[in-house]
């Protein structure tokens, strides 16, 4: 077994798989079961101030995007912060941490945006023996209407301010959880760092509505005939999260800031995506809610076998390794030429590639040859967009072939160059940089 141990923002954990702040981390019963199953750490479901807890609707609280065979692509929730008494939570956190000393225990917090509120709750959390706190600036519903959650997460100045309070009034590592319902996530990330954050975690959930019931013409999900937007998560959001993680990781102002990756992690491959793009660990929720806590064993095993196969002794060897490959569009090599190639031996002749290309792209795939059904790429039209590869139902039947320098591109009749040229120096670009000779 490879070494899966992590030390995230100063918090040791036997593996990079944490449970995110949500119903699975609501109380001792759940968290004990999670640790028994092998999770490296949890972020306890968000605590609010002392006083009467929030109340939520008694169903439904969730909706989902399901495939016809009921595979979950996306998940939507209107869960709120904890609806349990603060004192009960603090007692349980203390006890669980004491019973599981080697696992990471982080407590998520959301209290009003006032210094006194934060000053009051921080020592209570520190007394539990928890390893760190996560500031919930992301809840897109329920709390944002009260000036908390996303209402803070969308205002960089508030993020910096509250983070600074937490650093001032507590010695615990501070993880700032960011909302994706924002134009440029780098601004909140920079603000968190300026406030002294030890790490950021992202993404929280995305504003969403799942659909409409065709017979009642009400939105779904709905409570007594009406519904609210919810927070979207699960496999569908992973690409959004990956982009935001990469943006923060490669922004010079936040590079090096530890990142906890959240959003659709369901297996070791997903975790690898996040880690390679700069995350120090991952947090999981939806997959645990679909499969149960045991799923962490498959994640750990898969990641460990991958690391053994690749010769990676620890996650340090993987973290951020894909970042150098992330750049801005304007720096991509315009001299690179790919063409699609269809393997006639594995082609099942469905014709999807043809119609996708013919209707919506470059009309670069035949439908027939010598009067017979036949699907072949016409290199003089193909721009290598990859659409056919993606719509083909047979894995590896269609692939993109990279043309070598010296080969002729039949579409432009130009020979492929080995020189890298991008938009910044392209003659068609009115804002091009003059090339030095």
């Amino acid at each position, binding site marked *: 077994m490879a070494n899966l141990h992590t030390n995230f923002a100063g918090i040791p954990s036997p593996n990079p798989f944490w449970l995110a702040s949500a119903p699975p981390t609501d109380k001792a019963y759940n968290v004990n079961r999670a640790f028994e199953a092998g999770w490296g750490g949890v972020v306890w479901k968000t605590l609010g101030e002392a006083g009467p807890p929030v109340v939520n609707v008694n169903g439904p609280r969730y909706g989902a995007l399901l495939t016809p065979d009921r*595979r979950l692509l996306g998940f939507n929730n209107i869960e709120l912060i904890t609806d349990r008494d603060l004192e009960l939570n603090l007692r349980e956190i203390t006890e669980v941490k004491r019973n599981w000393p080697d696992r990471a225990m982080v407590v998520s917090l959301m209290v009003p945006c006032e210094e006194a509120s934060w000053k009051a709750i921080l020592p209570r959390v520190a007394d539990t023996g928890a390893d760190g706190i996560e500031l919930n600036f992301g809840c897109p519903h329920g709390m944002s209407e009260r000036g908390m959650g996303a209402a803070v997460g969308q205002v960089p100045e508030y993020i910096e301010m509250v983070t600074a309070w937490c650093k001032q009034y507590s010695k615990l590592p501070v993880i700032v959880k960011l909302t994706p319902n924002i134009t440029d996530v780098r601004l909140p990330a920079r603000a968190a760092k300026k406030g002294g954050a030890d790490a950021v975690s992202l993404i929280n959930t995305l504003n969403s509505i799942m659909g409409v019931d065709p017979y009642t013409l009400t939105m779904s999900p709905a409570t007594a005939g009406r519904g609210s937007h919810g927070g979207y998560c699960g496999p569908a959001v992973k690409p959004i999260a990956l982009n935001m993680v990469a943006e923060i990781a490669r922004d010079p102002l936040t590079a090096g800031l530890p990142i906890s990756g959240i959003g659709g992690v369901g*297996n*070791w*491959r997903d975790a690898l995506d996040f880690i390679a793009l700069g995350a120090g660990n991952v947090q999981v929720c939806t997959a645990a809610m679909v*499969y*149960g806590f*045991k*799923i962490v*064993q*498959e994640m750990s*095993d*898969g990641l460990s*076998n*991958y690391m053994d*196969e690749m010769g990676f002794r620890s996650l340090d060897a993987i973290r951020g390794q894909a970042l150098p490959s992330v750049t801005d569009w304007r720096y991509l090599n315009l001299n690179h030429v790919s063409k699609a190639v269809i393997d006639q031996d594995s082609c099942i002749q469905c014709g999807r590639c043809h119609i996708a290309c013919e209707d919506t792209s470059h009309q670069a795939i035949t439908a027939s040859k010598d009067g017979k059904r036949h699907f072949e790429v016409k290199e003089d039209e193909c721009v290598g967009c990859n659409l056919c590869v993606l719509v083909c139902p*047979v*894995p590896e039947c269609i692939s993109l072939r990279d043309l070598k320098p010296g080969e002729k591109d039949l579409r432009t009749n130009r020979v492929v160059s080995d020189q890298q040229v991008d938009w910044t120096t392209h003659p068609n670009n009115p804002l091009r940089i003059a090339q030095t000779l």
Partner: protein
Amino acid sequence: MSSPVSPPPSPDVRPGRLPALAYAQHFADASPRLTPAQAVLEAERCLYCFDAPCATACPTHIEVPSFIKRIADGNLRGAARAILEANPLGGMCARVCPTENLCEAVCVRHTQEGTPVAIGRLQRHAVDALLESARPQLFTRATTTGKKVAVLGAGPAGLACAHTLARLGHDVVLFDAHAKAGGLNEYGLASYKTPDNFAQREVLWLLDIGGIEIRTGWTLESVAQLDALRQGYDALFLGMGLRSTHQLGVPGEQLDGVMDAIAFIATLRQTKDLATLPVGRRVVVIGGGMTAVDAAVQAKLLGAESVQLVYRRGPAAMSASVAEQEWAQTHGVTIHHWLAPVDILAHQDRSGHASAVRFARQSLVAGKLTATGEIEVMPADMVLKAIGQQLGNPVLVQAGLALDGGRLATDAAGATNLSGVWAGGDCRAGGLDLTVEAVEHGKQSALAIHAQLTGA
């Protein structure tokens, strides 16, 4: 005017009934391997059930949802580990286990849509991928304990016991009567279930853990031998299987052309060029279990013109599963029920050779199998007997081992009434006579032996 075609000389038992190329085709893998794409699609059908019924139904309690999820995750090595951790002979079991009666029978997809997840095929996909990988060895041996265990019988029970013990650090000597290890895996299971010499490849993988020595050509012939083993080793595991077959007990049983199905299959398994193996033109197989089916199907695949599988009770009473019966029928074997053999008739010209089997029709009268008075005669050039096996080695009882229903009596972990002696597999009482169960017996006994040897 054409002259009548003279009947072929009978009794007609000869090799080479088929064109040369047909043998490879007929005896090719009965269950073609899944492609990687097919495996992932099939794996995605698994729901990762809580307290999965399939894992409970598996006699070795393989963590089925875990291994299937790992296949879906692209973690084939991890999938193989999950399988082999619970069942070190997961490769052979994937090929021969009657999954339609075990895990796949209780798969919730079966309940939901009538088609279970193809658990057996997925298991094979994962184990085969491991064996073909650059690093097929998964397990490391614990520090040697200095204890030595003797295992009699290198079939699935003995192999599983030996591997489990060796992993725990004990030294094992594995004794077997045959020239090769593997037991029924090598000598008994149908050829089309175990192509490409898989039984031996699996044995090599099992031995690779280290600490296991195999001594072939060794038979248990005296109580003194057994005593010497009990003296010379720290524990003893008996996994010899069943040595003798039940006889029909009818006149004509000694005629040429009449043989045990087990012997027929064993010869077939060890025959490199199947075109040289004689088979009757008309073959009658007597029995109703998997051995009967395997013998019947393989006789047909060798080119027998007609193969009758005859059982004395009805289809529901046959121990061969419905899937096995259908397998036989789609391979051209005709199954007859409610016929019990009365005698085997000798050939009129070659009186030392069988020519037909006479059966008495049976029915149930007040729950008892009773002859109706009707007689049926089936011509036969070859008669294969597959009506069950028995322990067959008198040394066992002579040594003081207690029996139960003709097999060795043991507790749940396989401990016999003799101290330091455990037993598992077909030779042990109360089992299902399945390869997978033999593996579980071997494993459980190994753990019990380990506990006793280490004082745990």
